[in-house]
């Protein structure tokens, strides 16, 4: 299946992926309304230091430690995509304890949030289509 992969050397550290992610998950159809004057909580995050920057989001592991560790059954693999049922999640953060990539994070509601490859939206994830330099790609590897 297609997953998100990172080409670190092409990353400009522009953070656009974070904005596209926040917009795609906002439920709004206008980017300005979705993001203006709002602290965003994207499911993809840029790490940066000196000249190095790269994006980190869920790897959709074939042996997902978050799913195996989830105490509620709210995290599950659906056709390889690791999805979260936020209605079932109680915010215990055992998945945060388990994810080796630090790719699961608390949402403003207290339950967790994570990249679901924009499956509801269809096509390529918003962070990938929004990246100006192909530092994030969506492909089979």
């Amino acid at each position, binding site marked *: 299946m297609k*997953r998100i*992969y*990172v*080409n*670190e050397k092409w990353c400009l550290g522009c953070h656009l992926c974070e904005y596209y992610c926040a917009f795609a998950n906002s439920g709004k159809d206008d980017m300005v309304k979705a993001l203006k004057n709002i602290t965003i909580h994207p499911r993809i995050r840029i*790490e*940066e*230091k000196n000249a*190095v920057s*790269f994006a*980190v989001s869920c*790897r*959709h*592991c*074939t042996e997902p*430690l978050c799913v*195996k*560790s989830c*105490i*509620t*059954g709210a995290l599950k693999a659906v056709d390889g995509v690791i999805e979260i049922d936020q*209605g*079932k999640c*109680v*915010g*215990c*953060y*055992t*998945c*945060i*304890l*388990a*994810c*080796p*990539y*630090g790719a*699961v*994070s*608390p949402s403003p509601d*207290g339950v967790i949030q994570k990249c679901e490859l924009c499956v509801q939206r269809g096509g390529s994830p918003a962070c990938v289509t929004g990246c100006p330099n192909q530092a994030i790609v969506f492909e089979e*590897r």
Partner: protein
Amino acid sequence: MKYVIIGNSAAAVGCVEGIRSVDREGEITVVSREGHHTYSRPLISYLLLGKTDREKMKYRPDSFYSDNGVRFLPGRAAVEIDPAGKTVTLDDGACLPYDKLLVATGSHPFVPPIEGLDGVENRCTFSSLDDALALEALLTPQTRVLILGAGLIGLKCAEGIAARVASVSVVDMAGRVLPSILDETAAALVQKQIEKHGVRFFLSRSVERFCGGTAVLTDKTQQDFDVLVVAVGVRPNVELVQKAGGAVGRGVTVDERCATTLPDIYAAGDCTESLDITTGERKVLALLPGAYMQGEAAGVNMAGGEKLYDRAIPMNAIGFFGYHMITAGSYDGEEYVVQKGADYKKLVTGDGVLKGYLLLGSVERAGIYTALIRNRTPLASVDFDLIKEKPQLMAFSKTERLRQLGSRR
């Protein structure tokens, strides 16, 4: 192939999913002492708190047993294993033949012998859904609750009921809360947070005797209560394996393939002891993630596959009234400690690897630390100053990052 699983919690579910990842055809029978659909045991405090409900606390969907072709026998207890005849006898006399057996019998609350305890009218433990429902039935806004034990179970219980009752008092012999996972500094911070919600603590003392609804503590003070919750710890349910002649230490003895010392009998979850790789000690690590993964490995091996459960460590993610903590590994080694208000961090290193950590307050991305422990990553191969600053992949080499973010995981 006939598989029998005794138990219906995380280890049993892991085993079903492990078996089915290898064998779609074999017959699986799940024997459950409790009459409920598989549910998440740690969620019972969230149920009382109103953060989940009976439907949402199901660990797997209603279709779990039928989806996996499982014959589910709820409300039936296994009373004997015959390892020579390869059968399990149930409490109604039924005899189940097996080719491969999983014992996932869990644990039971330990109730210490205390004078007058039998005379306490409203007494509960807090380990199962039925426990939680029985406790809930006793609660009114006027109820005064006394909890024996300031460990994970006792404190989650306190959080779950604090807003629904007149008072909650917690008594523990230890001098601090959560002594198994927190150091003194962290325990004091957590205690303060819980006290803000009206819970009172009586530490460094125990109950000498009960006189009806009064507990006389070892310092001779008295606590009046309406409901008593005994949450001093749990003991692994090892009897079935022990009676069948299997080796038992603190819990059922299993190897890395989750096999007991009896042929074709496996065990997983809270009834077993596992090897803590951070200390080299065998101990009972009664943790849901471990139970699932151990059960899954057992299932794969029972079905003829190969999967090792060989990286067990103590680990806990827990929160009280919105104050979160994540802890993992062991704390014997060189310490790096940072405290800023309610945020507390402790990293413990030794033998060139991360041995353990404790995060209070800010817990974001803690799994990067957990992975360093589980993988026994040599700290010489990472930028430890960056690791100390916060959990981040920047601390790894470019090559390692390429492996993590640029290839299939």
